[in-house]
């Protein structure tokens, strides 16, 4: 137990501090924070940083915050070093039991840096968080989806990062009131500097919401051949294409919003058709919650068949045109 922290609980009346670089994730965190704080009869504090912080503070209050600390930083782009300095100050003053941070990539590099500055524990990507007596428990998926670890903090504060859509936001309550506190937090001298920011190429696809996904992997010989799965997706009235890591990250035949896997997107469509995907565990981790999984692969020993409900062993260049025709007749 770090010397200067109480064994249990917090000193003030703030139980949870919330920070998210994206407002939408912030609303989801506030909903969980509200639930945890209500169990203890305590308060939720959110931190907002940046130019539009003032209006965001009101929205946060309407979505469950009791207090919002606003700091109008000069930070032009998110910088984990600066944000961890700001949150370090806030947490040391407010002494919350829990800090919730969105598991965006920004949040995932921020939370452990903050944790080390506070000598605190950090649980990454928790999709369940609940009170159990004096403890807060968090559950997360480990071993590429083969296990769920239930973890508990041995000291406070405890930091938890939360993936998007793990919790539903509370509806807006226009009548809700709360306190907005403006704080000037002097930043230390910057340690790294951002010299350029570019939007990633995106085709505006949302695989996480799709009901049917046709996905491609290294079994395709060239990018032009993806027309095959476009056609397959079209005849099934499911226009969403997915892919494994090499297609998006190495070959760049599809943008990263199509990427299904552990470090890509986690999907749960009713139907997932994996074409020419070998089925590495990192890919399966991203789609294992799908309703029905179909695999098409010429290698009968490909691990994808272990993760599939239905499989066809065969050359996808022969199988897919036949499948398109067969489905067209059923539709």
């Amino acid at each position: 137990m770090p010397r200067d922290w109480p064994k249990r609980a917090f000193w003030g009346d703030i139980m949870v501090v919330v920070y998210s670089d994206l407002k939408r994730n912030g609303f989801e965190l506030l909903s969980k924070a509200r639930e945890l704080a209500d169990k203890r009869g305590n308060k939720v504090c959110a931190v907002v940083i940046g130019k539009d912080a003032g209006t965001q503070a009101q929205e946060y209050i309407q979505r469950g915050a009791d207090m919002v600390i606003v700091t109008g930083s000069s930070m032009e782009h998110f910088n984990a070093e600066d944000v961890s300095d700001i949150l370090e100050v806030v947490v040391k003053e407010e002494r919350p039991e829990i800090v919730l941070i969105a598991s965006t990539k920004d949040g995932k590099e921020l939370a452990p840096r903050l944790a080390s500055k506070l000598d605190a524990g950090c649980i990454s990507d928790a999709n369940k968080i609940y009170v159990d007596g004096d403890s807060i428990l968090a559950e997360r998926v480990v071993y590429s989806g083969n296990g769920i670890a239930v973890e508990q903090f041995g000291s406070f504060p405890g930091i938890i990062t939360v993936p998007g859509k793990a919790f539903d936001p509370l509806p807006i309550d226009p009548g809700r009131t709360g306190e907005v506190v403006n704080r000037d937090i002097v930043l230390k001298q910057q340690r790294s500097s951002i010299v350029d920011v570019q939007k990633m190429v995106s085709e505006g696809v949302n695989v996480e919401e799709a009901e049917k996904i046709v996905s491609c992997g290294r079994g395709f010989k060239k990018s032009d051949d993806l027309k095959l799965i476009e056609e397959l997706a079209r005849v099934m009235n499911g226009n969403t294409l997915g892919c494994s890591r090499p297609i998006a990250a190495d070959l760049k035949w599809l943008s990263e919003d199509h990427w299904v896997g552990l470090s890509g997107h986690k999907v749960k469509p009713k139907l997932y058709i994996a074409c020419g995907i070998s089925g590495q565990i990192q890919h399966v981790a991203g789609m294992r919650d799908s309703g029905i999984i179909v695999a098409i692969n010429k290698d009968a020993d490909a691990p994808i068949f272990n993760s599939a409900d239905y499989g066809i062993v065969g050359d996808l260049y022969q199988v897919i045109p036949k499948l398109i025709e067969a489905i067209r007749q059923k539709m």
Partner: protein
Amino acid sequence: MNIVVCAKQVVDVGEIKVNPSTNKPVLEGIPKKISDIDKNAVEEAIRIKEKLGGKITVMTVGPPDAKDKMKELLAMGADEAVLIPRPQGADYHIVSKLLSKGIKKLGDVDLVLCGEASIDMFSGQVGPRIAGFLDWPQLTYSFKVEAEAGKVKACRNMGDRMVVTEASCPAVLTVTKEINEPRLPSLMQILGSARKPIHDWTVSELGMDGETARVLERDLRGVKMERKNIVFKDDLDEAVAQLAERLAKEGLLG
């Protein structure tokens, strides 16, 4: 440029099965390996050394049997290795602090390279935690790195955007799998790695005796994936007809 690469020995997650009677993942008797993305970190370190000179030290917190796997990294081109024993129940706080103190003890380090996350737990905490402990800049999720004397610049994949960040050394970098293709060592390099030192450092000499974990594992449940595993082969026309029939019955067409 002196570089420390933090590497972790992990179980091969693709080999994990869930024990049906205990409903827990079976972790004993599973083949072990160096976490994939840590090899990308070693490869990047070698490329930087080839350009700028210096020394590469691989640092691992893990069990004694990790030495065998660390030799692969020495064969790739690292100069020496340090193994720090992993205390029972160690969490990211303890592991990262041991590594940070190890880096301090080593001294004269310009860059620390880590994989973006280990493939078993995939938390991605160790790199940013080391940067925080040492109060060094952190350049995470790097897929392209340019190092020159005393300075480093990285293109970073931050999901919806690409961020180019630069910093003066010392700095911590975490790399993604796309950054490079880790080399396979030659037979000569494998034989030569036997002469490279693997130092054993103790938890005590790093001043970390009695450090308590901040996160405790209460339970680990297995997640079984139950699938029908019906595979059609040989006659493709028949196979496709069967599949279409099944999909229609499942109500997935239409």
